[in-house]
């Protein structure tokens, strides 16, 4: 969460709770409720490493709040983040190892493994569809996020299908 928080602060100073709300608004229901505690911990670390600076602001009837802003070092860190490309998603290697090793163990049937894995993916796909249906139509970022997750899952399902075709081939 470090870099997304830095990115949010690139626009201007903000306090922890505002950042939580910004994330929620941007990503909609596809985002697992951001944990405000986790946000404060991360902000503390970013401050310690000099990427952001906090300033206590007095509030009349409440405890002080801390407003953070990006430092030059933070801005450089963010620039470097945008310079890199992200890693590709990885094949579900745990499932693949299970599948590949199943015949040697004699403990599981490969087709049964594929069928069970497919059921889980389909259930997740169904939940994503429901999430997309419930999400505000105008929140394009949230919809793109859900669609991305669905397309990845679709590829995983296609790959299961390929595994099944290969393994069910009559000898």
């Amino acid at each position, binding site marked *: 969460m470090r870099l997304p928080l830095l990115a949010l602060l690139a626009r201007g100073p903000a306090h922890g709770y505002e950042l939580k709300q910004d994330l929620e608004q941007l990503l909609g229901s*596809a985002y*697992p409720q951001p944990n405000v505690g986790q946000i404060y911990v991360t902000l503390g670390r970013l401050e310690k490493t000099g990427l952001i600076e906090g300033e206590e602001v007095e509030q009349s009837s409440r405890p002080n709040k801390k407003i953070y802003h990006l430092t030059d070092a933070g801005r450089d860190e963010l620039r470097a983040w945008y310079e890199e490309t992200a890693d590709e998603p990885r094949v579900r290697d745990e499932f693949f190892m299970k599948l590949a090793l199943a015949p040697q163990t004699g403990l599981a049937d490969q*087709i049964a493994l594929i*069928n069970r894995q*497919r059921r889980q993916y389909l259930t997740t*796909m169904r939940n994503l569809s429901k999430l997309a249906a419930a999400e505000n139509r105008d929140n394009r970022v949230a919809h793109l996020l859900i669609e991305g997750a669905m397309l990845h899952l*679709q590829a995983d399902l*296609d790959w299961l299908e390929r595994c099944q*075709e290969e393994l*069910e081939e009559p000898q």
Partner: protein
Amino acid sequence: MSDSPAPVLRAERLVRTHHGEGAPAHAVRGVDLRVRRGEFVAITGPSGAGKSTLLHLLGGLQRPDSGSLWLDGECTDAYSEARWAVERRKRIGIVFQFFNLVSNLSVADNVELPALLAGVSPRHARAEREELLAELGLTGKERSMPGELSGGEQQRVALARALVNHPPLLLADEPAGSLDSKGTREVMRLLTRFHLRGQTIVLVTHDARLASAADRVISFFDGRIADDAVLDGVPPRGTGTSGVLELRD
């Protein structure tokens, strides 16, 4: 239970082999299937697995080499082509990948035609058509010709045509197969909406996103049912609303 109604659809040991050039292709190799009233069943599998052939057998568009098929508890084995044509007007609605609209009839006429053929009065057919087109967001397109519409719109007209006689069973063969992502979502939304109102649906698709709208998914491989899964809506893991995205420190 003795008083439970017969399944909308019941198939036993359906077999269909295509004899073309070369070796015979075993498209459907002994399929047993029951579809209860109100169910939404998706049949998925790789292309060439025989799933479209299966759907064609269920709608009487092709006849099985052997095996039996019941609609609402009534055996169809002795049905003639003419009888099947009547069933497809009254009891079974079908939508296809390429819409199959009558290209030289207007949208309104395409939708009204099956109602008129079923003996409904022109006034009633018109009222049904108006209601369905409004429901499907096609008001104002009545006079358009199919060729003037987008793919997504044509598929919605095809859906209206399939449902105009309120058939107990809707069969859909790759209904989003020639649509873009937006059209696919639209078809998915509409099928879900009709299903929630009680429409029984059997959908053939290779698209897992579309299949996930159903509450039962059958995986079809090499002419056989490899898996038959009821999707319960239980969220996979307990974290957050969804866990689509997990930001970690």
